[in-house]
């Protein structure tokens, strides 16, 4: 079911096997297994309380598992947490930016803590890349939700960690900001970064992920590509339904002055997905 096309000499970017975790008497994870290939986008889908955040916290060395093992880039999260931390970055569910500092200072802070040279220059590059240059000298506390999340993601990407965890990266964002985050995630994977993201919205997983795992009551109950998951449903029944634009389509068309009517984001996304799904091989760029 998992990665049979994997080349044997290179371990997967993320390998989780038999991870269990309970808080007091409440079991949250009851034996989770999954593997994520290098440079792919892996979506962990589940409702509130399914254990997504707990798993992400274990993988990012913030929490010890009760049983099982997990490796990131070959490093064990429990045995070699320092090496793991050099390989990862975490964007939490609630944008953890320093509200008192300016956007630029937040980025400089992270660059310094990652012991990089020229933190100021790195910060400026990131501000430009995430469309925050104009707001760079304002306190992050004054940012809108979308700007905060962009800053949060920008902070995560400083130092180009090979593995990125995004815990519900678009929760609470408006449709436009959500599209921006999606765009960023796609670009990351195109550059070879491995992305594990958690989400509770199905279309997010559908839009972004190479593989999707469904976490339910502490176990992975399904894991596969979108096509594989769709096959699990009863055969397709052909019906003729008038295609109404969704309110999101309307909203985006009205709000986004740059897009011309015939190149809506929806169709671009479809094209991207089609290109991605046509090859199930791991991309090793």
């Amino acid at each position, binding site marked *: 079911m998992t990665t049979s096309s994997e080349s044997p000499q290179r371990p997967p970017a993320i390998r989780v096997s038999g991870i269990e975790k309970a808080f007091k008497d409440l079991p949250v994870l009851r034996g989770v297994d999954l593997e994520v290939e290098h440079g792919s986008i892996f979506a962990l889908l589940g409702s509130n309380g399914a254990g997504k955040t707990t798993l992400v*916290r274990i993988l*990012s*060395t*913030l*929490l*010890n598992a009760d049983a099982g093992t997990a490796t990131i880039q070959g490093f064990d999260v429990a045995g070699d947490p*320092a090496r793991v*931390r*050099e390989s*990862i*970055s*975490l964007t*939490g*569910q*609630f*944008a*953890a*930016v*320093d*509200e*008192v*500092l300016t956007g630029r*200072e937040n980025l400089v*802070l*992270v660059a*310094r*803590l*990652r*012991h990089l040279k020229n933190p100021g220059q790195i910060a400026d590059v990131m501000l430009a890349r995430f469309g925050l240059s104009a707001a760079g000298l304002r306190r992050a506390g004054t940012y809108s939700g979308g700007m905060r999340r962009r800053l949060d993601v920008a*902070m995560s990407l400083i130092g180009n960690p090979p593995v990125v965890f995004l815990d519900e990266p678009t929760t609470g964002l408006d449709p436009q900001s959500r599209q921006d985050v999606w765009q960023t995630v796609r670009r990351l994977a195109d550059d070879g970064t491995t992305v594990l993201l958690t989400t509770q919205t199905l279309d997010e997983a559908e839009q972004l992920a190479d593989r999707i795992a469904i976490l339910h009551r502490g176990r992975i109950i399904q894991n596969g590509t979108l096509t594989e998951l769709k096959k699990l449903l009863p055969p397709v029944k052909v019906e003729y339904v008038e295609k109404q634009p969704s309110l999101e389509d309307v909203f985006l068309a009205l709000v986004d002055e740059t897009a011309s009517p015939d190149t809506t984001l929806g169709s671009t996304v479809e094209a991207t997905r089609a290109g991605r799904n046509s090859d199930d091989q791991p991309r090793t760029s």
Partner: protein
Amino acid sequence: MTSHVLADTCVLTGRSLRHILRSPDTIITTAVIPIALMLLFTYVFGGAIDTGDGQSYINYLLPGILLITIASGISYTAYRLFLDLQSGIVDRFQSMPIARSSVLWGHALTSLASNMVSVGIVISVALILGFRTSASPGSWIVIVGVLLLSTLTLTWVAIIAGLAAKTVDGASALSYPLIFLPFISSAFVPIATMPGPIAWFAENQPVTSIVDTIRALFAQQSIGSDIWIALIWLIGILVVAYALAIVLYNRKTTSA
């Protein structure tokens, strides 16, 4: 990784010092209660208090007021640490390759800096109100050293409070008992006037030896054994509080 302790601590201290510079009211409010108490005791109660050592009451009072200043200042450390834990920024720091203790040391060093500014403000006001000292530069160095050590010790106690707190109010409530401790000591009145059990408590609690040490240094009198008792108290509490804080922090950042 340990080679980064100093660098990471500097970066994180710089971060929280920025917080203070952008809300300097925390330094002012830290100094307000001690200054109010100083006014109250100097002009309302002071006339009726006989300290029996012939010096002006504000000279007698100031060391205790300085400890109250520190006790109220460190609650901001608990508060800021609690907010950092709450907001998820500690998670962000902990998921990065930094020295783990630097998150706490950043707050501790910031506390030292901001409390010394508050103490400086209180001493300036005391000078306006008539406080006078004949302390030599050497005595001043010892006084500042004792105040810094007191701040560091109480800061680590406050860090425990910040780590253990469940609410913002809980994090900053620590100050109240600490502010009242000097009242049951030699800080405001001589212990001899207190009834037996209270006098015994006052005689044997850390504030008395610290206050007596600083008072003697300000007056250029001999400090006797008080300074050693004060140092044993402070270093003892510091070691215990530091160990507890680290244990609590590691537990909090890897298993909860």
